[in-house]
């Protein structure tokens, strides 16, 4: 044990560069994993971040006016109270549209508990008594921005004109419209104007408790209700808010999962390569240790322990770095994806860190096992690799290629295993970078051509205050609209009688909505339908299958004729012509129109035009492209490439070390016959560069071959369906290849220069 520790310590000291690179790779991979987990967690469970940042209360009570809340403080476990704040119900009127809103009276002094997280503009201020701050999801839903003027109507009719001065996020209630009414914070004058009668208002109080586990929260909430018997109008707990905010995001999840897997793969490769290379460089020392009485098991354990120690240090660096960098690194993420970035819960961090460390140990295990099996006689026999000068090498020499380059390149491939390990490590990095570039170009494509994922329509229009015919006429007459497809969205009950799915009647069989059909064909006759991969999976159906579903109680038989790519509705959706419903005798639900715009027309311009033409009476909504949220892909790709560059760096350094060890004696002989130190350096660099170039070529080819297929496969697993994958752009590939080749060559210079300056005599000594 002591002897092993002594050896590990010496070895770590003797190879600081390799140790640092390995440590950085582990730290980088762990940081990448933690950050992607943070984003995923923040995106799927936004409540946690919002709650932490807003120092929210766990329980909120709506009480009748004038309730004395001081007794709440005496309930066991209650630490602090927020409020009480006066609130009243009102409606915000924008032309024909009315939205229910709860006005909360607050002061410009930001409360300590249940703070509001101002996203745009400012918090309430004395200088703007008519200012209103809107809750972010509500503001988005009613298309209000800072500066928008709104009319607020009280229940009994009084009106106040207000101006939006800020947009803020809160953890007090879930997002609009899942949770209505919307939220707006105002100062007393506005609230008084809207609801002059004090006893018609309510009071809102927040309770912060010491032990916020769900059981205890429910218990305290029950006690509070009992305590204030009769005065409580409404209770909400953090569990309800968390649940209503929770959401799944298949596209983001897919990308983050891919990202995580790739970085993990990179880490495994580095450890494998670094450990394997180190074992190779240490063969003689290991054999000597055996001759001294180290058992194979001890040597294996020792090598694993060494890398586990480096891995642990890297893990620690990664955890600490993530802790400090989370907020600054993830700042650029749009609030629409992650409303509030906070570090992961400790349990997650521990889990991820332990997994990372376990992976390091597993990756080191195989080379370590080989190290244990090293023959003890290597110490004496010193097998030196040899090989014939190949025809290619002879030809290169004859054609006046610098001999140093030829000799170096040739030497690189004499030792098969290290050459394969290095080429493998670099090639996989390169392949993954290629796949990453494929992901980038796929995202670009989805963002620029939403039609490819079934989002041909940029706007949806409901008749709103108009009747069907008027709406149809306005839409048809609009010159900015290329096509308008009558559409319905209805829920269908599957044959199992338990599951419901969303179905879309889009266009008619004669004029179907222009889905980009990934497989099969579009619906051209009543009864025909196209389904997403997720639905096909759910039903265990294929193209060609007939399936019966109940719509509004009427059984409808659908013939699946094609598959579409669909990122929404959890990937489970069915689309067909409206005439299918008519033929089956289903009473048609209200029709809206899906509008495909003419090229060059933006959705917002068309929306504005339609609103103005209809006098604001049409209900026009922009279709959100889920790919709009994929802006995060770029920083992720940059991070990924950084980690893979480290992987490559580690591979190249290992290759240099092994190569120089093998060639040093030959180099001595070559220098003795007249090679200059410069030529020696060139030879050593060529050796590494030759491996790198072969690896880059293999990696890029493999990446190009699998990239599109892999993305499609991932999309298929996620229910989005195959067909969205795109190959990387030629320019991006060229740049990546050039940078990789140059980087590998430059990295090889430093160790080669050191080796080239060793005196000839020292090289010739055994």
């Amino acid at each position, binding site marked *: 044990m002591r002897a092993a520790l002594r050896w590990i310590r010496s070895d770590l000291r003797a190879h600081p560069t390799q140790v640092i690179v390995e440590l950085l790779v582990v730290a980088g991979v762990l940081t990448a994993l933690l950050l992607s987990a943070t984003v995923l967690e923040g995106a799927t469970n936004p409540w946690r971040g919002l709650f932490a940042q807003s120092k929210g209360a766990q329980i909120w009570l709506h009480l009748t006016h004038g309730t004395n809340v001081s007794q709440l403080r005496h309930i066991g476990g209650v630490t602090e109270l927020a409020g009480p704040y006066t609130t009243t119900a009102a409606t915000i009127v924008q032309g024909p549209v009315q939205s229910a809103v709860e006005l909360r009276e607050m002061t410009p002094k930001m409360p300590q508990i249940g703070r509001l997280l101002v996203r745009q503009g400012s918090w309430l201020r004395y200088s703007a008594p008519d200012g209103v701050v809107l809750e972010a999801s509500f503001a988005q839903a009613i298309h209000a921005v800072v500066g928008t003027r709104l009319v607020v109507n009280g229940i009994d009719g009084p009106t106040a004109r207000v101006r939006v001065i800020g947009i803020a996020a809160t953890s007090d209630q879930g997002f609009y419209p899942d949770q209505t009414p919307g939220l707006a914070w105002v100062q007393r004058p506005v609230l008084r104007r809207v609801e002059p009668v004090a006893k018609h208002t309510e009071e809102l109080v927040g309770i912060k408790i010491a032990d916020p586990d769900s059981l205890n929260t429910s218990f305290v909430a029950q006690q509070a209700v009992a305590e204030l018997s009769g005065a409580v109008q409404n209770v909400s707990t953090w569990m309800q808010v968390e649940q209503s905010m929770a959401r799944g995001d298949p596209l983001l999840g897919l990308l983050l999962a891919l990202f995580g897997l790739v970085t993990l793969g990179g880490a495994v490769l580095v450890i494998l390569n670094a450990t394997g290379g180190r074992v190779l460089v240490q063969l003689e020392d290991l054999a000597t240790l055996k001759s001294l009485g180290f*058992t194979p098991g001890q040597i294996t354990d020792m090598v694993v322990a060494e890398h586990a120690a480096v891995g642990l240090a890297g893990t620690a660096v990664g955890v600490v770095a993530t802790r400090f960098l989370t907020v600054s690194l993830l700042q650029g993420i749009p609030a629409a994806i992650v409303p509030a970035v906070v570090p992961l819960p400790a349990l997650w961090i521990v889990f991820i860190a332990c997994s990372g460390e376990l992976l390091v140990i597993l990756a080191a295990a195989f080379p370590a096992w080989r190290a244990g099996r090293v023959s003890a006689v290597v*110490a004496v026999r010193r097998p030196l690799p040899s090989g014939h000068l190949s025809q290619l090498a002879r030809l290169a020499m004859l054609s006046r290629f610098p001999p140093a380059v030829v000799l170096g390149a040739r030497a690189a491939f004499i030792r098969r295993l290290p050459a394969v390990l290095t080429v493998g490590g670099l090639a996989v990095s390169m392949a993954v970078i290629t796949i990453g570039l494929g992901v980038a170009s796929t995202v670009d494509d989805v963002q620029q051509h939403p039609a490819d994922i079934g989002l041909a329509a940029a706007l949806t229009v409901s008749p709103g205050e108009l009747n069907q015919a008027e709406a149809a006429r306005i839409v048809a007459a609009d010159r900015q609209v290329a096509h308008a497809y009558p559409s319905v969205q209805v829920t269908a009950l599957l044959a199992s009688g338990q599951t419901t799915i969303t179905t879309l009647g889009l266009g008619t069989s004669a004029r179907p909505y222009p889905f980009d059909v990934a497989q099969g064909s579009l619906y051209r006759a009543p009864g025909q339908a196209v389904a997403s991969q997720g639905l096909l999976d759910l039903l265990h159906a294929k193209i060609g299958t007939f399936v019966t579903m109940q719509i509004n109680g009427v059984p409808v038989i659908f013939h699946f004729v094609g598959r579409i790519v669909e990122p929404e509705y959890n990937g489970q959706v069915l689309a067909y012509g409206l005439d299918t419903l008519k033929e089956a005798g289903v009473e048609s639900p209200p029709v809206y129109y899906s509008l495909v715009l003419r090229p060059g027309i933006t959705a917002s311009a068309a929306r504005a035009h339609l609103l103005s033409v209809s006098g604001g009476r049409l209900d026009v909504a922009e279709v959100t492209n889920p790919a709009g949220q994929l802006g995060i892909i770029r920083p992720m790709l940059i991070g990924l490439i950084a980690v893979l560059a480290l992987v490559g760096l580690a591979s190249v350094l290992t290759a240099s070390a092994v190569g120089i060890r093998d060639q040093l004696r030959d180099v001595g002989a070559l220098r003795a016959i007249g090679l200059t130190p410069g030529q020696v350096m060139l030879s050593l660099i060529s050796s590494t560069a030759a491996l790198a170039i072969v690896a880059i070529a293999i990696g890029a080819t493999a990446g190009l071959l699998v990239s599109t297929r892999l993305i499609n496969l991932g999309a298929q697993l996620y229910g989005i369906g195959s067909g969205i994958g795109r190959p990387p752009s030629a320019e991006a590939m060229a740049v990546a290849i050039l940078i990789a080749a140059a980087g590998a060559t430059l990295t090889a210079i430093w160790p080669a220069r050191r080796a080239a300056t060793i005196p000839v005599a020292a090289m010739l000594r055994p």
Partner: protein
Amino acid sequence: MIARAIPRPVTAADEMLLKITRLTKVFKGSGPPVHAVREVSLSVRRGQFVAVMGPSGSGKSSLLHMIGGLEPPTSGEIWFDGVRVDGLSQAAWALRRRQHIGFVFQFFNLVSNMTVADNVELPALMSGATRRQARERRTELLAELGLSDKAGASPARLSGGEQQRVALARALANRPSLLLADEPTGNLDSLNTSDVLRVLRRVHGQGQAIILVTHDARAASMADRVINLFDGMVADDMDVLPPVRSSVAAAGVIRLGE
């Protein structure tokens, strides 16, 4: 009862440290099999100094490696201290080497990333000595070998002679009953060779057995017994009398063994 009271007479079996019978090593590679060692049998007593000589490729090193457990024999038996060891696992061999066998090689084979002190302390640490015990033993050995001032140096900075003395110190750290030396002077000049031989003589004087593979007649002349290998077989095996410091004729110094 009586038997316990009377000390057991020392028998020939007790004196025997190492016994090998019909030991054979065949290397099978891509070409025809190479018979490195062919059915060699010999015994080594405690404290005996055996020199093994012979031309390159005669199987000296292979024999030594098999005796030390670095390589398994193709066939034959090895008995060490009355225990049969040729079938032992690598791990069991490692334990045995740690406690009973010291190795010295032609190319020194010091652990390159460790200092001289660490190299010498390693075997003691491995067999469970405390850090202090290991340090004391190392100080003692380095002082004995005139290397005290090199303790902190890296092996690469030492001369060949110094490296070999460090290797010797390391091999002797656990006071092995058998020291296996594979051409320890093969790579040294005459001055350094003398140094190494002086150490070997002292080791021999302390009662440790030595098997020395060498080309060097001067080294072999220190041994109690010289074995000549040729083509993997024992060509001759003779005992050597200690040199007599009188005017006895040279012919009288060497007496052929049985």
